[in-house]
């Protein structure tokens, strides 16, 4: 996080706010609700309190304006700049301006008012932009279903105003770091010749043509997918990727999630109702067999017949010796299976049924 240079902050922790005018894009009650929720994010993480006033002076004034609105920071029409805010102080200090040329929403369509208001409030309270892509104070707008303070934002606001008065201190998600030796994964899959690793709200992407790991939100590619995916696999012959969470799954082709999803895993794949979620999945390109790992067992599915093979589930430990009883994620590359469990990874030869090399989970990131 970054604190605004000069460390401007409010001396009084009980602040007032007023909404000067309303956007026609949303009902008034929705605007009120979005701004109230934005304040709650920051008040839950600090000793700050916020009270709405209907008229007269207020510390933080919200307005919807467009073009040149006489503060030396003109807006630029649709897209581009969405909003700006002034650092704590008297007069215009703390005030927040939204660009009325944007279309303001209360859902995942661009641009979610709650999301933008929460970010701008960070500036009104004395925070500058963060370089942590998972932080609310990151400068670019990324579509997200989960609008919350990351641990980085909480650290920032608490550096300015101290801890929350709540007996249980709030915590927020920590953005994964490719070279963190404790990094684990929710799911891993190949996608059109690349490999994508999934963790919480994020993906990490490696591409043979770029040396750097790309870290971004899953929602950048697939806005309708939830965070915390549990398994994913590619059927390259059909150019499909399946994503699993709980007993539901989604199918995507490239960036498009296909119509009619999510579907349940029982009717589509034939799992019994006792299976509540899938830990990991991988499809063997040569045979068209997909392996699903569930607790200490695995199932085999035939992608051509679109049915589960008879005689399953079987014990993982029996047919994949050495990889343990539980799999977090698995993918196939160059004829090998790569199994992930915690911070460990195993390069496994499915022909000889032996581990070729034990690796660290983040071995793909050139750390």
């Amino acid at each position, binding site marked *: 996080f970054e604190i*605004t*240079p*000069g460390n401007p902050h409010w001396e009084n922790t009980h602040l007032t706010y007023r909404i000067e005018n309303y956007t026609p894009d949303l009902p008034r009650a929705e605007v009120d609700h979005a701004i109230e929720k934005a304040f709650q994010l920051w008040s839950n993480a600090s000793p700050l309190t916020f009270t709405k006033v209907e008229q007269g002076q207020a510390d933080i004034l919200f307005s919807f304006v467009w073009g040149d609105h006489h503060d030396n*920071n003109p*807006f630029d029409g649709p*897209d*581009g*700049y*969405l*909003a*700006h*805010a002034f650092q704590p102080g008297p007069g215009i200090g703390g005030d927040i301006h939204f*660009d009325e040329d944007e279309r303001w929403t209360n859902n995942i369509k*661009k*641009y979610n008012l709650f999301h*933008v208001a929460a*970010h*701008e409030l960070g*500036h009104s309270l004395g925070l*500058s*932009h963060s*370089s942590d*892509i998972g932080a609310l104070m990151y*400068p*670019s*707008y990324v579509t997200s279903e989960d609008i919350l303070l990351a641990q980085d934002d909480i650290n920032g606001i608490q550096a300015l105003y101290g801890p929350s008065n709540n007996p249980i201190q709030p915590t927020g998600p920590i953005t994964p770091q490719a070279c963190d030796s404790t990094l684990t994964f929710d799911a891993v899959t190949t996608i059109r010749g690349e490999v994508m690793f999934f963790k919480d709200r994020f993906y990490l992407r490696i591409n043979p043509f770029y*040396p*750097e790991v790309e*870290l971004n939100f899953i929602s950048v590619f697939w806005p309708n997918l939830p965070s915390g995916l549990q398994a994913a696999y590619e059927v390259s012959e059909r150019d499909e990727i399946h994503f699993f969470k709980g007993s539901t799954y989604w199918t995507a082709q490239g960036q498009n999630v296909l119509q009619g999803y999510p579907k349940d895993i029982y009717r589509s794949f034939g799992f019994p109702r006792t299976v509540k979620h899938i830990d990991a999945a991988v499809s063997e390109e040569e045979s068209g067999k997909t392996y699903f790992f569930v607790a200490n067992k695995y199932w085999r599915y035939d992608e051509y017949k679109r049915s589960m093979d008879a005689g399953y589930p079987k014990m993982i430990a029996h047919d994949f010796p050495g990889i343990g009883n539980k799999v977090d994620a698995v993918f196939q590359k160059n004829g090998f299976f790569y199994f992930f469990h915690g911070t460990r990874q195993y390069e496994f030869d499915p022909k000889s049924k032996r581990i070729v090399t034990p690796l660290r989970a983040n071995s793909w990131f050139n750390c």
Partner: protein
Amino acid sequence: FPATSSDTQEQDAQLVQKYLESYYDLKNDVTKIQKQKSSSPEVEKLKQMQKFFGLKVTGKPDAQTLNVMKQPRCGVPDVAP
């Protein structure tokens, strides 16, 4: 990769200039008179921007850098003026 037309290059150059002026306090009136140095203020600001966003620090407006610059964003600068 498709070749970039000169029109697009000009637009990209303007985008980079405007972005750095808006968010990285690049002064657009001081660069032309000064003696050419190995590293211009624009290159330095570009490097600063690339470092902030975790991009490869090249000092050049490569495709990844332009992509980030084209994303909708908050109007508050990333560095103090």
